[in-house]
C-alpha cells in the first residue's frame, strides 16, 4: 500500500522568511498525483498546490512551490515570504486513479512575528 511520510511534526518560521516542509512517499506506480493541503484552526482543509507525476516541472502557486524529486519519491513544499496567515497544519497527500487520497500525519507550522 502507498504510504506518505512527513518527518517534521512541527516547524516554525520567522515572518517574511522561507520555510520548507518535507514529504516522502512510497509507490510502485508511475502515474499519480501529489498534493499539499493546509488546515487552519477552522479545520477546513484547503488545497495549496498539486503536482502531476508525469510533469517534470515543479508546480508553483504564488508564494508556494514544490520540489518534486520523482526518483527519490520526495515532494517538499517551500513557502516564501511567510505570513502570519500561513500558520496551520500542512498535509502531504498522494493519489492515483480513482482511489482515495493517502495523507501524511501533518506538519504544524508556526509563524513568528
Amino acid at each position: 500500500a502507498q504510504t506518505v511520510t512527513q518527518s517534521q511534526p512541527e516547524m516554525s518560521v520567522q515572518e517574511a522568511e522561507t520555510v520548507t516542509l518535507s514529504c516522502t512517499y512510497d509507490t510502485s506506480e508511475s502515474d499519480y498525483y501529489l498534493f499539499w493541503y493546509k488546515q487552519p484552526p477552522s479545520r477546513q482543509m484547503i488545497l495549496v498546490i498539486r503536482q502531476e507525476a508525469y510533469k517534470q516541472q515543479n508546480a508553483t502557486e504564488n508564494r508556494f512551490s514544490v520540489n518534486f524529486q520523482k526518483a527519490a519519491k520526495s515532494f517538499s513544499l517551500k513557502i516564501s515570504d511567510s505570513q502570519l496567515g500561513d500558520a496551520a497544519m500542512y498535509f502531504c497527500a498522494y493519489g492515483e486513479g480513482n482511489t482515495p487520497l493517502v495523507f501524511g500525519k501533518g506538519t504544524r507550522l508556526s509563524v513568528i512575528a
Partner: protein
Amino acid sequence: GAGVSQSPSNKVTEKGKDVELRCDPISGHTALYWYRQSLGQGLEFLIYFQGNSAPDKSGLPSDRFSAERTGGSVSTLTIQRTQQEDSAVYLCASSPREGVQETQYFGPGTRLLVL
C-alpha cells in the same frame, strides 16, 4: 457558491449511543468522501461514493460504521454503539467527478467526543 457543509459542528455523546453525521456536498459534485482525523494523525479514509456506483467501503474500521448517500447528494455517516476510540474529527469532501485528478473540496468537519 456554497461549499461543503457538515452538521453538527460538534457532537458529544455517551459511550454506546448511536450518532449520525451529515454532509452536504457542493451541488453537482458526483464524488463524495468521508475521512476521519484522530488527534495527532493524518486523515484516514473511511468511505467513498461515486455517482450510482457501489460505494467503496474499504476504509470503514468496523461494522459499527455505515454511510449512505441519498439522491446522489446528501450523505450521512452513522456510528452505532459509539466507543471512546471513535472520538475524532470526521471530514467530508466532494469533487466534481471521480478520479484523483479532481480537486477535493472539504467541509469544516464534525468533532465527535465520546465520553
